[in-house]
């Protein structure tokens, strides 16, 4: 078999992180190669390089043995590479057919040949069993149908190599199963596929070979027949990593849960359930770590607790009393504070000074304001104190938040949330993108809060972090709690399996 695609020595630096470290991958003709890895493994960067959205610092791409330059999506398309993104790139008000042919429309002079377009699409649909109504407008289509439109888009452009980025992320199980039929028929017709995923079961079901990435490096490539889910999980999350035990995991006498969710189900942005029947308890002075790959319901979970998202089913209780979901002010008053993953968009206002950001959630109450009038002296004093206490490096408290480094920004946000004396702190990916020093600092802060009796929900895609900090651990997969345990002697492998969905019923 000939290698239809080779990525040779691909290396890519970003400030502070080596996203791809001399990666070598080959794709054989007519095979399905799975690219497995957790968040931050470097999969997305690699695929963006392949699709011309990024340039590598080193390395080259070879298509059928020929070295080629891919500087833009058009170049990739010209090489027969088609990419189906995780977040669809479809124009909602146009029809499926229009979306499929956009950019390569069949024309007669200036006029669209809609008939021809429809015909070509119908033929492709039949060949690959991608049932889609070409005349339907995209906003009317289900997620599964939209995905089929995306696939038809790449097929229409004559893609021989398809890259699918987390394709089943928003599909129902039935749609996912149908999707695999489509994949099989594509392979039967000679297409070669790279399938990016973190889901072990799927990867085992559909791929011929599996390449595992971790922290920017290729850990290994195995043939599916020789692999086991356990082995893959190990490769994905690593084994025998030195755990810095930064806190005692005492088995404490558990008091009353300060907050809990019972059977919570939440609808996500795609209209599907982001959380399904999740139940958990938060205890004071305890860190509950939520492990799992991004996109399995973590953000929605955080938002429910923070009062930013309503519950479709189930209930939320604080101090044993049922509270309505979706009221952010109320949650703050109950002592729930939230450090969101998207720091720059949701956690802070980049253009405004530090002292404005410092009181984002506390500005409406004394001492920062009384009867609607701000007390600038108190605000400034507070901000000065926080910058000193948390060692936030800045020229003054009047500079814009956007001038802070990632670590200092996160310290500011944490300072803000912690200073309100939270009873419950929801920390979502708190150390993502930070340098080593800042990571240590943030983790120390979280442990300090734990000592003070705060109940902490730590959501992190970094398994090391979960293992280092949590007292108890749950794993979210496809919106459900796939696994639950005390953080005592649990194996990374087990967690890896849970994160990959292998432990789900």
């Amino acid at each position, binding site marked *: 078999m000939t290698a239809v695609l080779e990525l040779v020595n691909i290396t890519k630096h970003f400030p502070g992180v080596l996203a791809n470290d001399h990666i070598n991958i080959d794709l054989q003709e007519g095979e399905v190669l799975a690219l497995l890895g957790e968040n931050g493994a470097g999969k997305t960067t690699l695929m963006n390089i392949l699709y011309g959205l990024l340039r590598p610092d080193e390395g080259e791409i070879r298509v059928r043995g020929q070295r080629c330059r891919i500087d833009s999506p*058009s170049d990739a398309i010209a090489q027969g590479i088609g990419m189906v993104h995780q977040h669809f*790139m479809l*124009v909602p008000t*146009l029809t499926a057919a229009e979306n499929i042919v*956009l950019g390569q429309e069949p024309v007669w002079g*200036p006029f669209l040949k809609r008939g021809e377009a429809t015909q070509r699409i119908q033929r492709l649909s039949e060949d690959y069993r991608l049932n889609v109504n070409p005349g339907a407008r995209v906003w009317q289509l289900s997620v599964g149908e939209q995905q089929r439109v995306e696939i038809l888009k790449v097929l229409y452009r004559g893609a021989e190599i398809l890259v699918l980025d987390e394709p089943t992320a928003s599909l129902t199980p039935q749609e996912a199963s149908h999707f695999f039929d489509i994949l099989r028929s594509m392979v039967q017709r000679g297409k070669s596929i790279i399938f990016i995923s973190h889901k072990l079961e799927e990867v085992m079901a559909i791929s011929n070979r599996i390449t595992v990435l971790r922290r920017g490096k290729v850990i290994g490539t195995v043939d599916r027949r020789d692999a086991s889910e356990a082995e893959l999980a190990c490769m994905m999350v690593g084994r025998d990593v030195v755990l810095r035990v930064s806190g005692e995991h005492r088995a404490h006498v558990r008091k009353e849960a300060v907050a809990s969710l019972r059977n919570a189900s939440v609808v996500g942005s795609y209209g599907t359930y982001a959380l399904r029947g999740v139940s958990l308890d938060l205890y004071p002075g305890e860190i509950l770590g939520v492990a799992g790959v991004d996109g399995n319901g973590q953000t929605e979970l955080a938002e429910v607790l923070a009062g930013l998202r309503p519950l479709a089913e189930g209930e939320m209780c604080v101090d044993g009393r049922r509270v309505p979901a979706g009221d952010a002010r109320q949650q703050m008053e109950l002592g729930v504070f939230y450090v969101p993953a998207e720091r720059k968009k949701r956690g802070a206002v980049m253009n405004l000074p530090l002292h404005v950001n410092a009181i984002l959630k506390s500005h409406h109450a004394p001492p920062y304001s009384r009867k609607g009038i701000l007390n600038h002296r108190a605000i400034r004093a507070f901000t000065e104190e926080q910058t000193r206490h948390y060692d936030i490096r800045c020229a003054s408290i009047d500079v814009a938040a956007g001038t802070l480094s990632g670590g200092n920004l996160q310290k500011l946000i944490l300072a803000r949330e912690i200073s309100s004396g939270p009873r419950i702190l929801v920390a979502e990916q708190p150390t993502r993108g930070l340098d080593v020093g800042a990571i240590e600092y943030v983790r120390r802060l979280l442990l300090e809060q734990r000592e003070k009796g705060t109940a902490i929900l730590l959501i992190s895609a970094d398994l090391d972090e979960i293992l280092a900090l949590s007292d108890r651990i749950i794993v979210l997969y496809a919106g459900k709690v796939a696994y639950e345990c005390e953080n005592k002697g649990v194996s990374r492998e087990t967690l890896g399996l849970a994160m990959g969905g292998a432990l789900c019923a």
Partner: protein
Amino acid sequence: MGWPAILSLTFLMQVLAAGVSLATPLVLTALGEIFAERSGVMNLGVEGIMLLSGFVGFSAAVLTGSLWLGVMASVLCGALMGTLFALMVVTLQADQIVTGLAFLILSNGVAIYLYRILFGSYKVLPQVQPFRQFSLPVLGSIPVLGPIFFQQNILTLVMLMLVPLCALVLAVTRFGLRVTAVGEHPAAADTVGVRVLQVRYLCVVIGGALAGLGGAYFSLAELGFYSNSMVGGRGFIALALVVFGQWNPLLAFAGGLLFGVINAVQIRIQMLGSPIPAQFLIMMPYLLTILVMLVGRARQAPNALTVPYKRE
């Protein structure tokens, strides 16, 4: 004329014909703005473009003696202003609202200033013979519709031609498809190789050119001379028409007719001394537009309207 005369067919036809004529500058500008907005750019300065282009066209007509050269000058002026606007908002990504208003202020000033410079010393008001009304050969003889639509001046006839043309371009050409894509989801268009910035530039220039043509109507077809107040807010009405017509040329045309007819009715009724104050009639189209904004969920504004595009 008394009230019974109003109900006569002749009167009705007169009003409708006048309405079509009055609608011309509104519809022309609205058509151009539809292109711009469908691609994601809102040009609030069309009022100013109309005035300045109308002035430029008028000057050219006076200086060369040719109305058609005047029209061409107007269109060119509008296109140039469109290009400048695109430079500001597409390339430099300046705020579209404020830039539009800046254009408004600037064009007003330039038009008035240049008029003073060029014609300030004329003892008699400079004038041209405006485009005459004439009857189109076959179509003008159609009963009822003929006199209403096809016995008009040439610019009105051009407008009538452009309406279906623009509708066609947007609906069945490749360009039209790309315009829509760029205005709704520029990132998606970018990933399939559509040149977002180029499309937007082109649409804004088209918008400017058509606004220029609309401006020419005032000085070269309606009045025969130039006046600082000849546009009188009708550029803004064209903007309203775009929304009223839900970014569709045919509906915008219908809206323009509505505005034009109401205007024509209002003029005639005032002459008769009506019980309904003229102003309430004038208000109707604007209130209707607001209503459409509240109720029109089926076709919302282009998603990326007023949002500059940056490749992430």
